[in-house]
């Protein structure tokens, strides 16, 4: 009887100590098809994942093995989670007339596209950064770049975006898109960049 109990205890112990796959990590191509890399480290080894759909499975003792699940199985496990991924943040660039907060006419349609993007997202937030070219004094350009950013902010709020969800800053001539000497009129530097996420 005692022997039987020992066998049972041993069996139970074996079940609990048998390595079990507790964790699964899968590397995917990103939205542009590019594949990054991921180093998976456990107490019992490590694997560098750097190919599309490459997998690591980690047991409850920290042992790391490469996984061999097929795509259908991975999809089954993660479909709901992937469906909840928020859309990728998008940047718009709007250009301004020399020394003013007047949009270039070519940027008018971009402004509409920007608004559509903001409206299509759930709980969107918007970061607006104004810039100038190098004509004029540094401080004046700081002010002008902020005014340009605020022009766009006012437009979006006027269209119904919540005030707390949109921030505007000015970077003056501190972050030129096209590097130039001082006092150079450069249309591509007279811009506002708008990040929507």
């Amino acid at each position, binding site marked *: 009887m005692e022997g039987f109990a020992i066998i049972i205890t041993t069996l139970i112990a074996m079940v609990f100590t048998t390595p079990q796959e507790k964790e699964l990590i899968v590397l995917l191509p*990103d939205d542009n098809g590019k594949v990054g890399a*991921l180093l998976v480290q456990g107490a019992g080894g490590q694997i560098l994942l750097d190919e599309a759909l490459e997998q690591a499975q980690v047991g409850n003792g920290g042992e790391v093995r490469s996984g061999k699940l097929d795509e259908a199985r991975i999809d089954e496990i993660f479909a*709901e989670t992937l469906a909840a991924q*928020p859309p990728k943040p998008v940047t718009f660039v709007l250009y301004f007339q020399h020394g003013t907060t007047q949009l270039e006419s070519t940027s008018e349609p971009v402004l509409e596209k920007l608004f559509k993007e903001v409206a299509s997202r759930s709980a969107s937030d918007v970061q607006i950064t104004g810039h100038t070219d190098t004509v004029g004094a540094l401080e004046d350009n700081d002010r002008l770049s902020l005014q340009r950013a605020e022009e766009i902010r006012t437009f979006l709020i006027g269209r119904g975006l919540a005030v707390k969800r949109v921030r505007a800053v000015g970077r003056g001539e501190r972050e030129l898109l096209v590097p130039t000497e001082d006092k150079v009129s450069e249309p591509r530097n007279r811009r506002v960049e708008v990040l929507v996420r």
Partner: protein
Amino acid sequence: MKTLLLVALLLLACQAAAEIGTVKNVSGEVQVEREGRMLPVEPGFELSQDDAVITGKDGRVGIIFIDNSRFSAGPNSRLELARFRFNPTTHEGDFVTRVRRGTVAVVSGQIAKHTEDAMKIETPQSNLGVRGTKFLIQVQE
């Protein structure tokens, strides 16, 4: 000296409360555990360092962090935002999350892009060093 220490502590406290990301979409039961309290979550909910995002049996949630990294979690998940530092000008920072259970999909952002291994994900049995960009994690209890 005491005043300096107090100021430093206050600064730290302010930093910890700063917004690090926003919940973009929610379905089913989703809550955030903050300082021992459970808060209901709706789209637009602002997340801070040390928050834990928890989904129920039908819960799903999508988050965008201020470095543009994106996380989503499926049902029965627990995601802890252990550490988040980010300089929006230089893109330097570090970002540590813990996936305690459930399923999570991640697209890394500017922190991981700027510095290799500045973004880390910890699970009960492993540490992931993120060199980019899109990946999936399942942790079974």
